[in-house]
């Protein structure tokens, strides 16, 4: 397990790359990772940052291995473009742990992620239930070039058309930009009544949405018939506050802490030469076999007013 002695991994250094530094979620992730690295329990090289650019990721990985990294922990936002890097690392027998995304091709030691398709499905089921199968829902899609965004969109759309054919979904591409979402929502509100909103990233869309609804006097408690049911995605503290204030109804907690914790856990394990096999784990998740390795599917709990104070949620642990 975790916290294996430093000598266990010997001088096998872990190379870490962060995917981007301009989003709440990834900053939280980076904080968790850095905390563990600083605590000395992990023998890691100073982390690099690829700023959401694949070629920077590729050159960072090569620099990290150049500096002697024997295990690589990355979060490739473009799951295809990393393929040849993975092959290259495999040829050097350097195990790779991929956080958040499952590379399309190339050997990985372990993928640590919550299932993005499950996010979309959960959001669909929540909204479908609340709206009792009818109404109009606006979906703020991320970027079509992002695998996570695509997975969420697809799962949400499939689930809606299958289970709630009477709910009209207005899927709005936003490129993960808050002002685009706000404009689209404003247009949609002008065009007719909106009953529900699914925002694929709370960090980006929450504030603009709330500001606009406030201005339109639509930010009313769930008891009011004008209330728009909103489900968000990420699980950052601002969303929790909004849930408590009755402004939004739910969010899906994407476990930044678990990403960091188990990313490092498997990195450590790889350094120590451990192996894993498919099946349930000791931390409430399941490891499944994927074509190019294994994947630990972490739970992504749905957070509503009922469980928003649960101390085990990562957003509630911040600042502790």
């Amino acid at each position, binding site marked *: 397990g975790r916290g294996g002695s430093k000598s266990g991994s010997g001088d096998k250094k872990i190379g870490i790359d962060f995917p981007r530094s*301009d989003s709440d979620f990834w900053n939280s992730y980076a904080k968790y990772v850095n905390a563990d690295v600083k605590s000395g329990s992990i023998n890691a090289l100073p982390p690099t940052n690829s700023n959401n650019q694949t070629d920077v990721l590729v050159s960072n990985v090569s620099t990290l291995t150049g500096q002697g990294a024997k295990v690589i922990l990355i979060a490739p936002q473009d799951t295809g473009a990393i393929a040849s890097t993975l092959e290259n690392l495999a040829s050097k027998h350097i195990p790779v742990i991929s956080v958040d995304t499952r590379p399309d091709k190339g050997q990985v030691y372990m993928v640590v992620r919550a299932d993005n398709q499950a996010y979309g499905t959960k959001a669909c089921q929540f909204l479908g239930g609340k709206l009792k199968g009818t109404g109009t829902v606006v979906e703020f*899609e991320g970027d079509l070039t992002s695998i996570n965004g695509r997975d969420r969109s697809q799962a949400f759309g499939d689930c809606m058309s299958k289970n709630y054919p009477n709910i009209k979904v207005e899927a709005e591409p936003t490129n*993960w*930009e808050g002002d685009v979402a*706000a404009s689209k929502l404003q247009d949609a509100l002008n065009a*007719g009544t909106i009953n529900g909103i699914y925002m694929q990233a709370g*960090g980006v869309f*929450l504030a603009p949405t709330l500001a*606009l609804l406030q*201005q339109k006097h639509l930010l009313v408690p769930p008891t009011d018939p004008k209330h728009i049911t909103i489900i968000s995605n990420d699980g950052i503290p601002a969303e929790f506050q909004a849930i408590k204030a009755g402004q939004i109804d739910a969010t899906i907690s994407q476990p930044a802490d678990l990403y960091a914790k188990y990313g490092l856990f498997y990195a450590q394990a790889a350094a120590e030469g451990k192996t894993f096999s498919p099946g349930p784990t000791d931390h409430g998740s399941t490891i499944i076999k994927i074509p190019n390795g294994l994947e630990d599917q972490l739970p992504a709990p749905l957070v509503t007013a009922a469980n928003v104070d649960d101390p085990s949620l990562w957003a509630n642990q911040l600042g502790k």
Partner: protein
Amino acid sequence: MSDAASAPPADPAARSRRISTRWLREFSLLPAMALLILIGFIESPNFLTSDNFLAMLQQSTELSVLVLAEALILISGRMDLSLESTVTLAPVIALWLVLPTSGNRFNGLGFGVEWLAIPICLLVGAAIGAVNGFLILKMNLNGFVVTLGMLTMLHGLVIVIDGGQTIFTLPPSFAYIGNAEWGGLPASVWVCGVLFAVGIAALGWYRHGRSLYAIGGNPGAARAAGIRVERTVWIVLIIGSMLAAFAGMLYTGRLGSASASQGTGKIFEVFAATVIGGVSMNGGRGSLFGALTGVLTLKLIENVLTFGHVSAQDIEFFNGVVILVALIVSRYTSGAAQD
């Protein structure tokens, strides 16, 4: 080919035609806008509603203010890419200095009472413009790449300051300016209108405003005519950056938050709108009113596309097509080659 000397003596009809097109040029996008409105009207009953038009106006305010800034700078014969980052950085620094040291997720330095946020924000803008001016005018560095470097650096600075988080706590002044309504119109629309009116008046009827055209058209001649070229350009860069900071304030207020990822890539839209609106990238030519029609045209097209339910996959393609088509329309309705 410069064959002015030997060109056939201009016949008077041609000459007066030329003069009248010079005036028409400012209005050259109006027919296109009318056409777009017609298309939108056919598309959806919800298009031609005051709600929709108000929404369009409100959504255009920040871009309009940026276009105002860039138009002033382009008319003076310069360009500034870093406006995009100023939009984000200025409010973030203001929040950072003003927000209390504890109690929020993002803790500021608690330096001042909250009403200071707006002046600080504008001051940060002014400082950025001053630095750009120093690098371009005093150190003689290439303006495109200087402001490109600043674009990256200032965006990086936002991340250094806020750690990449979104700041959700705003001082009331920001929230007010972004959301208030005055007489049924959003406050930001009023302010934006006033800024344009001031700009148009200054560039149309005041000596110092007119000097921007002289500077952009021929800086040597402007200098000989007694215009303080460097100083004026510097002031324009500072005003431009202050306008960008102001746009950032509107943005932050409207969206209820500030973050590094807000507005990335906007600068391209700013240039597109400005040039489509008839402002020359080589300086000395164009009008602020024209630039404003440029913004509104792009916004109209975007709105028409939204009402037309263009698929998510195709939207970016259409955005590009839109820029090219608007450019061609503006080229042919104004009748002048672009440079």
